[in-house]
């Protein structure tokens, strides 16, 4: 029997497979395709204190082995989330990580303070790296002092594990991971999307209304792996790897370079059963490699 459970600081997951924020909504749609109770957990769509309607269309466009999105953090807001989404999430029998995206430090704190009272929420993922909103987002994500302050202040209002979702749009991601650690953060997730754009050559107009968007999908996997490795080699903090994972092989690669767990995102749009398939693949891999505990894979690179 292979032990698939992993530990992200104080947070224990039954296996390392998490569904990434913004690719599972609040769980209800994807639950029609896949048994979420089999997964390590899900990270819910970024919440802000008040509802956000999101950006006007076009919000997405496909690029070579990837996609650009500028959804603009469309979400129902904290109040509706608690009233209408938590009851469903409670029934899922999987770990719920609640993602928060705000436009001010005060808003991050306020959201966490309210949501931490919900038993259904096991941990928080703080999104300081959304490239698609005018206020907040990257303004925080590439400012070391802002990340330090958000980590410290959010930690002060919750006893639950706090994961900071880092931006790849910085020169040294490990410095951000270090500042998260120094300010009491429990883990980091890396990476959020890369800023990108695409233009229509006939109209000379951007293909998405926001002009730039976040690039995701297999196209970004090598970048994500390099960022996870950089953090892993420089900072002692649990890492949740994210970026272009399409199958179990990609997932193993992330664990080898340093991830304790990983999130799958864009693949959920294409194959909503990918999470379950990856678990099956991981078990087979462990059998073949005579690995008893999947957590032994983390940072097992030979360099």
């Amino acid at each position, binding site marked *: 029997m292979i032990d698939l459970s992993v530990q992200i600081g104080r947070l224990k997951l039954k296996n390392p497979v998490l569904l990434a924020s913004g690719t599972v*909504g609040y769980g209800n*749609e994807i639950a029609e395709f896949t048994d979420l109770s089999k997964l390590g957990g899900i990270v819910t769509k970024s919440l802000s204190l008040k509802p956000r309607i999101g950006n006007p269309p076009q919000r997405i466009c496909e690029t070579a082995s*990837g996609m650009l999105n500028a959804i603009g953090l469309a979400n129902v807001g904290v109040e509706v989330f608690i009233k209408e989404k938590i009851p469903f999430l409670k029934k899922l029998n999987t770990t719920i990580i609640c993602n928060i995206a705000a436009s001010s430090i005060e808003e991050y704190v306020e959201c966490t303070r309210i949501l931490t009272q919900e038993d259904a929420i096991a941990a928080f993922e703080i999104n300081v790296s959304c490239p698609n909103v005018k206020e907040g987002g990257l303004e925080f994500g590439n400012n070391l002092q802002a990340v330090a302050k958000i980590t410290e202040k959010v930690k002060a209002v919750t006893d639950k594990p706090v994961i900071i979702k880092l931006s790849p749009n910085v020169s040294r991601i490990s410095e951000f991971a270090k500042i998260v650690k120094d300010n009491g953060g429990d883990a980091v997730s890396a990476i959020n999307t890369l800023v990108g754009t695409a233009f229509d050559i006939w109209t000379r107009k951007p293909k998405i209304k926001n002009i730039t968007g976040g690039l995701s999908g297999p196209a970004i996997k090598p970048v994500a792996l390099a960022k996870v490795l950089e953090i892993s080699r420089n900072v002692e903090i649990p890492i949740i790897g994210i970026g272009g994972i399409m199958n179990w092989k990609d997932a193993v690669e992330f664990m080898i370079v340093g991830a304790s767990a990983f999130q799958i995102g864009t693949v959920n*749009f294409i194959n909503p059963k990918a999470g379950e398939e990856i678990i099956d693949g991981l078990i087979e891999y462990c059998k073949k490699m005579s690995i008893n505990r999947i957590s032994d894979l983390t940072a097992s690179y030979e360099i």
Partner: protein
Amino acid sequence: MFTVLSTVESLERLNKNTFLLKVKAPQLATAIKPGQFCNIKVSDADYPLLRRPFSVCYTDGDTVYFMFDIQGEGTRILAEKKTGDQLDILGPLGNGFNTEGDFEVAVLIGGGIGVAPFPLLIKHLEGKEILTFVGARNSEQLIKWGMRNILVATDDGSEGFNGNVIAYFQSEANKLENKKIRIFGCGPNPMLKALQKVAEKKYDCQLSIESAMACGFGICQGCPVKKSDGMGYYLVCKDGPVFNSDQIVIE
């Protein structure tokens, strides 16, 4: 909603740019309602990465029909499928046309490949009087497969009414004045916008709209369409793709 591995039965060329794809997918065939769509993965490769949404054109026993134009890389690959190939399909998606309620005449108005969902709709409109206005740039691009009581309009006048399909409908509308009609429209946005204006406060009208999308079932939030009441957006995939004409603002 589910994913199925279907088998290609045939691929037929209807005109220069339009294809009719028939796949064997029993589970889908029985579940689909007219106006719903499916999201098809055209290849196993990472490019094209995303599925491509297609209206369901028709169903017959275990077979599901899709009608499509070659528009980009995804549809180019789809047009090369051979009998026996497997095709990964996710569906049925969205809400279809509402064929319930009190009306005598169903007026179907389609532009270009927008006529794709009409054959299945026609099948579900048994007992109603049906008029199908079909518009295209020219006679070569007209699609008549599966339509009933066709009234043709071409932009260049090479067949039927010389002009766009909405102008043609307007010129014929007086003949329907004493009857209870319901309009079903599908086509490019400028056409739907014109139809929306014609229908305003006058006709019961449902529009099926198109949008780029990633997932097709509500999680990517990539396919917004503005609500006419100013309260944000609907998602084309989940709330649509069929809307009542007065529900949405078409850009």
